[in-house]
């Protein structure tokens, strides 16, 4: 028997992997196309952090910091001048200059199928001032524009390689980031190798990065524990204790930019005629019946942050005078009486059928029952729930948003009348005016004042009950040092070292 075990060990020893200067990163899903103009997925942004530098970046405090652009200046409210870094080249050797910036930004605005168009639609045109200076001329003032240039809209592409790649550019992307594309096997791995010509080469300490999608949380955790991956994004709150118990691993958290909330259908089709959608008093009662702190304790291990706003408390645009209200059952019952409806009040909630959202909805169901609501849960697959929301086939909808660094990205498209993802068709002139003013004001204090006016109205109408802000939870090997947790959840490779 011993011999048998010894032989088995020898066989296994011969087939075990060899270690190298490779960083393995586990992603919660597979990225979509690797073309900054056409890409849509969140995990794609994580891969782009290795492939493509942007005009600007964000630091841990969400301040805008230089990357490919070293400085900027507003010459007036609609003219932004960018000064580019010298000596930067793309992976194919092309120089990164003002012509490349113009070449990259214009397709974002005009290419059919571009997903960047709505992000930088404020830009009217781009002018080349000199080889290292460009001028962006806007149609209207836009406070969020600079923040948009810290993401995919600010990624600069090489004109020659992009033209040569054509529609297939995303299969073999060429950029100016610290690593260059080597291979991709769909649903298995994306491999990037170090780019020796990177302008900030001193900050890069790995030779190769491999991104591996692992949708199953148990598998992701097992890979981290066994050392098969060095870093894993979006660890579940319920798995944190297991990682913390392991001396070879550590957890790094940062407040995330997104939120989770309940959207009400206030005017999108027949389903908006439900009592709760027609009565702000009932929505206030519904909110008063929810104990946000207990909700995050039960479902998210107490790691998420209860909130009543669309931005996290870490944001400079978080309005301190709008805290999450505590549970108040007496008030909830009084509000229902005031609304003049018989109890129990029937409410149906569409819930994407992921385990955490299902559990969250069940806890809410139990809480609001005590106040007099009969909440029925309609568990529905995610893609179907999106379609139902757009078509108005919902009374209430438990849904989240991954979040943007600028508050406009968490508010405008969801609350302004007649736009984007305002599935409940909420429309209020005070809110519209405040959102427009905040979007166009350059002064942060003026933006905060506009948002304060907006929250005054939103707290009365409650088109969305914001529940909590998630936390980015990254698990990593104790041997990987230099990790900087930025609230957007994107894994920067600069500074990471073994």
């Amino acid at each position, binding site marked *: 028997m011993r011999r048998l075990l010894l032989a088995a*060990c020898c066989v296994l020893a011969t*087939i*075990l*992997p060899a270690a190298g200067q490779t960083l393995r990163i586990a992603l919660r899903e597979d990225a979509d196309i690797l073309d900054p103009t056409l890409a849509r997925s969140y995990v794609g942004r994580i891969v782009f952090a290795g492939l493509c530098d942007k005009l600007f970046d964000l630091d841990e405090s969400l301040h805008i910091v230089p990357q490919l652009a070293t400085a900027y200046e507003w010459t007036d409210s609609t003219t932004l001048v960018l000064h580019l870094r010298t000596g930067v080249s793309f992976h194919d050797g092309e120089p990164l200059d003002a012509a490349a910036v113009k070449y990259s930004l214009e397709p974002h605005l005009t290419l059919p199928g571009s997903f960047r168009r709505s992000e930088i639609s404020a830009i009217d045109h781009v002018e080349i001032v000199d080889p290292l200076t460009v001028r962006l001329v806007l149609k209207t003032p836009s406070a969020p524009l600079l923040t948009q240039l810290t993401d995919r809209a600010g990624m600069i592409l090489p004109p020659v390689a992009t033209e040569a790649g054509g529609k297939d550019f995303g299969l073999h992307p060429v950029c100016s980031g610290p690593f260059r594309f080597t291979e991709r096997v769909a649903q298995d791995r994306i491999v990037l190798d170090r780019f020796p010509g990177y302008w900030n080469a001193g900050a890069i300490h790995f030779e190769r990065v491999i991104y591996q999608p692992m949708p199953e949380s148990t598998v992701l955790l097992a890979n981290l524990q*066994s050392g*098969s991956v060095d870093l894993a994004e979006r660890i579940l709150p319920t798995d944190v204790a297991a990682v913390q118990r392991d001396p070879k691993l550590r957890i790094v958290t940062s407040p995330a930019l997104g939120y989770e909330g309940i959207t009400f259908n206030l005017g999108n089709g027949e389903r908006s005629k439900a009592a709760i959608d027609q009565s702000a008093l009932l929505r206030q009662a519904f909110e008063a019946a929810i104990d946000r702190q207990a909700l995050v304790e039960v479902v998210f291990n107490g790691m998420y942050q209860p909130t009543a706003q669309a931005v996290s408390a870490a944001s400079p645009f978080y309005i301190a005078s709008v805290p999450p209200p505590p549970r108040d059952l007496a008030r909830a019952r009084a509000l229902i009486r005031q609304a003049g409806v018989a109890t129990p009040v029937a409410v149906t909630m569409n819930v994407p059928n992921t385990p955490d959202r299902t559990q969250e909805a069940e806890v809410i169901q139990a809480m609001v029952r005590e106040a007099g609501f009969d909440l029925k849960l309609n568990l529905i697959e995610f*893609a179907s729930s*999106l379609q139902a929301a757009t078509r108005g086939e919902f009374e209430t909808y438990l849904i989240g948003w991954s979040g943007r660094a600028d508050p406009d990205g968490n508010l405008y498209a969801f609350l302004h009348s007649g736009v984007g993802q305002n599935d409940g068709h909420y429309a209020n002139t005070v809110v519209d005016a405040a959102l427009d003013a905040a979007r166009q004001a350059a002064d942060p204090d003026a933006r905060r004042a506009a948002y304060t006016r907006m929250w005054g109205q939103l707290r009365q109408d409650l088109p969305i009950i914001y529940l909590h802000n998630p936390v980015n939870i990254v698990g990593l090997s104790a041997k990987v040092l230099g990790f900087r947790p930025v609230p957007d959840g994107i894994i920067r490779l600069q500074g990471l070292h073994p």
Partner: protein
Amino acid sequence: MNSHLGGRIAQIIPTLLLVSVLVFCLQQLMPGDPAMVLAGEERGDPIVLAQIRAELWLDRPLPVQYFHWIGNVLRGNLGYSWRIRQPVGDLIAQKLPVTLQLSAMAFAIAVLIGVPAGIIAAVKRNGFWDYVANAVGLAGLSTPTFWLGIMLILLVSVDLGWLPPSGYVPLTEDWRQSLATTIMPAFVLGNSIAAILMRHTRSAMLTALDQDYVRTARAKGLWEWRVVIHHALRNALIPVVTLGALELGTLLSGAVLTEQVFSIPGFGKMIVDAVFNRDYPVVQGVVLVTAFLYVMLNLVADVLYVVINPRLRGD
């Protein structure tokens, strides 16, 4: 025999056409607008949605969409993935070796365990080894593959650190690493099929061992294992081969749960991701190729019947 085989081959084209119509129609019944899924966080922008629908022909009538797709298929073009823009043919070419390797290993494990266990159980009927084989078979049948997979990962990879917990390395790149990444999922898959093969082999062998020709062989004084292997097993294998072909076909269509648990990038994982992302060309391409493999395997099983049992050669 030749006419029988000819008939089976002639059935392939209409079968595949029927499959293509079915898969195309059935996925139209799925709720969820592909354009909205593809638009991701831009789903609220009607211009973006209209652009996607126009680019992917989703704004055309369904028969037009079908004939556009099947026309391309007949010219050897399975289309491209809407999500990652890679040609479906390339994706299938990437995944097919993975699925073939995993299926072959799982099937080999199943046959190596299931058939001998079934023979022993039949020969030692109602004895200790029969009970052991039955108990192991029952355990294999009733253990959910995802549970066994996760338990093996926790034990073998996390606690013992012997094998990588997931992922895949091609055989051509590093055969040792390839075996290391596929042995656990192959065992998980093979385990449940071994149990089925064991039960069928046992029952077929019991029937064969009661036949007159076996009694005659024994009466002639042949060595018992020669009687079992050469006389009984050869006849007993017919239903086992049929079952084996069906099980192998199922394996080739992708072991959805096992591939998901072990992050093996095969057909199963690809089709699950494609369904959730409403990536219709990938779903259609994979189903069509799988159907083709299934039909071919059944054809091979038909040929094998004749090889195993000369009486079936007929006229």
